[in-house]
């Protein structure tokens, strides 16, 4: 196996066959990344890009704490979203994969619909529901809750709600696929070996879902880091996240080098966290060969 891999680098035919993929990767992935990075060493003056090749942008990035406050806030929100999504999605996905097997097709169609329904639409739907004059407040006030309780809209919690709501299907789907692929006999084998339901879950189901948990977490984390709609619409825009900061920098300030630098920082930190997470979860353990 290892030998075969070593050989392939010297196999002209294989190299030739890999060329389209390499070209595609280079043009669509590596080149934009390199260009983004190069952009960070320029400046804009009078809304025009100047090729200055200096570190002014990076000096700005590292000297202004608020870029980092926003980045920190973004990461915390994304991580919270990952945690909540996993906790919510696991029982749902587990139920779908085991208890409601007969409804499998209907459920898959519903989840797919959740994917394709426009997130903007759903998010604004929540505004109507959570609004001071919305259904939720009417209900809560009617039940005698104090006014502080009902001003939920335009807080970080509302942002988080929107993020979880929009990203939950991704978690359900990835977890569903990974739970569904577990041989039921493994669970029986665990019972047979003397495991309680809870123990079988902990020792067998959960570890075997690791690839699904990892994939779902990474997906939600990266999507969560990139949200701009939820903080703006549900969060009231008073507590912006990185995507909004980058959009503002690119569009409103027309400061492309700064936007590129902020994008780069966000990307590097996110990738670092994903790698860290993969290490923590032990995704490299040979049981999965991930």
């Amino acid at each position, binding site marked *: 196996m290892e030998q075969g891999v070593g050989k392939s680098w010297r196999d002209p035919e294989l190299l030739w066959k890999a060329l389209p993929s390499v070209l595609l990767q280079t043009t669509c992935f590596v080149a934009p990344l390199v260009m983004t990075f190069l952009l960070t060493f320029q400046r804009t003056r009078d809304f025009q890009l100047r090729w200055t090749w200096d570190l002014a942008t990076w000096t700005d990035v590292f000297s202004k704490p608020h870029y980092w406050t926003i980045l920190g806030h973004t990461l915390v929100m994304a991580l919270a979203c990952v945690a909540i999504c996993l906790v919510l999605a696991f029982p749902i996905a587990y139920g779908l994969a085991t208890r409601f097997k007969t409804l499998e097709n209907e459920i898959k169609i519903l989840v797919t619909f959740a994917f394709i329904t426009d997130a903007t639409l759903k998010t604004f739907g929540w505004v109507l529901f959570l609004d001071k004059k919305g259904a939720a407040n009417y209900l809560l006030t009617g039940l005698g809750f104090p006014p502080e309780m009902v001003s939920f809209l335009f807080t970080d919690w509302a942002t988080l709600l929107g993020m979880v709501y929009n990203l939950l299907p991704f978690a359900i789907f990835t977890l569903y696929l990974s739970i569904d692929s577990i*041989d039921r*006999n*493994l669970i*029986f*084998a*665990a*019972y*047979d*070996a*003397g*495991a*309680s339901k809870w*123990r079988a879950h902990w*020792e*067998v189901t959960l*570890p*075997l879902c*690791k690839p699904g948990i990892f994939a779902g977490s990474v997906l939600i984390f990266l999507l969560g880091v990139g949200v701009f709609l939820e903080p703006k619409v549900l969060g009231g825009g008073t507590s912006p996240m990185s995507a909004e900061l980058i959009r503002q920098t690119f569009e409103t300030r027309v400061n492309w080098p700064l936007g590129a630098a902020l994008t780069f920082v966000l990307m590097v930190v996110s990738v670092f966290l994903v790698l860290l997470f993969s290490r923590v979860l032990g995704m490299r*353990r*040979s*049981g*999965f060969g991930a």
Partner: protein
Amino acid sequence: MIIRGGAIGPPPFCFNGGSKRDMTSAPILDIRDIHKDYGSYQALKGVSLSVRQGEFIALVGPSGCGKTTLLKQIAGFEDATSGTISIDGRDMAGVPAAHRPTSMVFQKLALFPHMTVAENIGFPLKLRKVAQGEIAARVNEMLTLMQLKPIYLDRFPRALSGGEQQRVALARSMISSPKLLLLDEPLSALDVKLKKVLQSELKRLHRSVGVTFVHVTHDLEEAMMLADRICVMRAGHILQLGEPADIYYRPADAFVAGFIGETNLFPVEITSRAKGRVRYSAGSFDDASGELPEALVAEAAQGAALMNVRPELIRRIGPEDKVDCRVTARVTEVFTKGGTVQYRAHTSQGMDLAVEIQGTSRLPMEVGEEVHLGWNKKDIWVLPGGEP
């Protein structure tokens, strides 16, 4: 009529492989009138079975007969609709699988892919909160018992060969010293050669540990080789329960006769039973005497019945040779199969016969030849007629 079964049984002297054990003690497994319904589908329709301590019992039958369902009830993976299961004198109603003194070897082994071999084998002890050191010692013990090399301990199951995985699965099931080892067709996916090796391995294991084995299989030859008793099931019922020779030579009905191996069933009409003799008439072969000792006739056989004549009991005879029953036939096919030769022949009465002759016969037959065939009333068996 030829009924083709899954396998041809080995000769009678091979059967008593399992040593006879104490028959008088209380049964280790006692199943009473178990019913299991899946919605409107009845998988088990009143099954009762008693298994003695240390016995090796095989549940056989075609797929859908309920053998695996019965095994699941014993293991506790499913609750029976009605009936009781007792293990070692204790009613298992409401006892979850985790607390039953049983252990299952699954069809696809169900080794945990995320655990090493050592973790897999030691898993039942880990759940029982056995100390680390003792687990390691027990795992090593199991390794020796299963003839596995210690270098496998840190590997993951998928890095092992099929046979090695099989041994690991057995080791995991045996480590907790279960009273009942349940085997759900664990050898079915293996190639013939490996299967033979593991069959004798199972046999050896059974002899050395003295645990009661309940082995589900659709492979008759395997059941014949391994089991002390065979339980033939069909459509949720037990058709026959008995020692392999019993089942082979005295099948309860035409289904068992056919399932257990290729055979010839001649229609006969029983006219009377008296003084240990049974009188009958047969249109499909010639029998000058027209009677049989009662020991060769099933209790239930009345009126229209079937005479079960295994292919190896039929031989070629000369026109003047004296045999109890005879028939003339034209040979239609010849197969040479190892040390035996199998023939197909079409009788003058219009029946297709299977004939098996050991070694080189004095009188070889050729396709198209008109021959006399005959058998004696010694190992034949008359069973109730009609389609079961």
